[in-house]
């Protein structure tokens, strides 16, 4: 798996991540992702994988299922602020 193909579904709890690219072809799914404010460059932190994916972006937490998590492309970031 090349780094550019990593999705949120591959990440581990506690990982700090950044959205890499416009991900999915399906417009309805894309709208949902955008509604959560997830656009290329947005940073987030995965909190849980089970029973569903919970992540934090800005000051908000969202819960999504594995299928949706698998459509969100991310890369790891080293971020002091988020780890504090």
């Amino acid at each position, binding site marked *: 798996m090349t780094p550019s193909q990593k999705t949120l579904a591959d990440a581990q709890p506690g990982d700090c991540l950044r959205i890499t690219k416009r991900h999915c072809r399906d417009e309805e799914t894309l709208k949902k992702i955008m509604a959560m404010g997830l656009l290329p460059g947005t940073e987030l932190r995965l909190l849980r994988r089970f029973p569903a994916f919970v992540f934090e972006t800005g000051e*908000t937490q969202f819960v999504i299922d594995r299928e949706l998590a698998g459509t969100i492309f991310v890369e790891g970031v080293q971020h002091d602020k988020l780890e504090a």
Partner: protein
Amino acid sequence: MVTKELGKIVLAGHPNVGKSALFNRLTHGAATVSNYPGTTVEVEKGRFHANGHVLDVVDTPGLYGFSPISEEERVARRIVLSEDVALVLHVVDAKNLERMLPLTFELIERGLPTLLVLNMADEANRRGITFDCALLAKELGIPVVATVSTRGTGVPELKKRIAGWYDLCAAGTPNRVAADAEEPLDFQAAVRHRQKAEAIVKRAVRKVPHGVLWSSRLDAVLMQPFLGSIVLAAVLYFGFYQFVGVFGAGTVVDLLENGLFGHYVNPFLTALFEAAVPWGWLRDLFVGEYGMLTLGVRYAVSLILPIVTFFFILFSVIEDSGYLPRLAMLLDGIFKKIGLSGRAVIPMVLGLGCVTMATLVTRTLPTKRERLIATLLLALAIPCSAQLGVILGLLSRHPQALAAWAVILLVVFLGVGTVIAGILPGGKPSLYMEMPPLRLPLVSNVLLKTAVRVRWYLSEVLPLFLWASALIWFGRLTGIFDWLVSLLAHPLALVGLPAAAAPAFLFGFFRRDYGAAGLYDLDKAGGLSVEQLLVSMLAITLFVPCIAQFLVCTRERGWKTGLAISGFTLSFAFAAAWAVHALAAATGFLA
């Protein structure tokens, strides 16, 4: 005075930012406020005064952007873009400006006069976030006001700004870009707006790192499957069973039913009518065995009202605490198996209070398929609080029967859900949901919401009770009632129930809990064995919910679907009752 011609005010913004709470603060009551996305099921309108202006204000469902995902968003979009909007109050969650401001830009770019309301300012402050409103206003070119809508902080300032704006535009409303056709998703614009928002936030907002909040510690417990299940069990036991069941449906109902009505109201009314009305047949309409006052009003006030009130208090607390989205997350996996997502937890839990209200709330589910499955399961396998109260009261003396009832109901819920999900065409549901922070519910907010819901419930239910009593009276007078009862006796005999249970099931057509209450009376008279009790309780639980639910169901899902659901529910109730009766007879269970 001036105001009407200038047009109305619209509250718009993302789900769960406190629009309804602000609406309530502006108009002093009316809309229901809550801590989960998507409670503004019907659009609320109101009116308020500010500096000599009389202003009409409209609350809208949550809106993420101008290319809508859900039906609710379409409604919100339509209202915001309608002709007679003079001012849009864009309500945002102050701690998430980067995510919220892009919608502000969309509003401004469409030429809509916009005022930005930084709501939940207190929560932002607690997280070490402070903002320079003046700088924000300058950067955006629109007025900015900070508020805490649940407490009313900043609302006088907001009213002043609104009035000031109306003074200014008495001269004439600005032109705007008319855009009624649905727009395609503009990904580039979204990225541009987001970058602009981040740049502005960097200049006008200060963030200081904060310590771990109590809410995030508790959150870790709620979201962990094992501990979360224990909390759920505790909520079910203490909240539903002890608070609503034992206290509300037991103690309080007993006081009202036996004390107030049994000792004072009914004897008084009966004596009054006996003195005033010489004709027995007419007297029966009001104070007879099925009289409008002695049965209709008594059921509604002494039985249903306390149970429903206690349930809604509990539900409002659960809702405002932010527990429901945690529950949605916990149960998403199970709900996926029955063709729903965790989001459907909200109507299902609400259904334990009132299935009719819950059927309305299925609007918040994203696809037609999910709405249909949820409506069917609500009608079939979710007992409402009034009925639940009666059933718990009846079965609590027979723990074995109570356990069997609960297990069978759960099997029906999951089994029917799985089968329907397999049959119905359509894509798999997907879960995406905001998790608002855990909050300590405000007593005033809980009471306001409970009052609004109880009022809705009574206005929906009381006329029905009176009509039912009148119809039964008419049916008894003409013999139709007895004919229907004898007709019902046949299927009842098939499931091993005595003919004396037939009137109860006839009541059940009006409302299931009405039927359950009838069985309650029958059991008190010693007319049912434990096995018959289980079979009859199961049948009446799976029965068609009530006339109000039927009407809402046909309105929301169409006549054909509504009738099909009712037909299925009825046949299933009898089939299940028959199966349980046969099984109990064969195994000797509860004999």
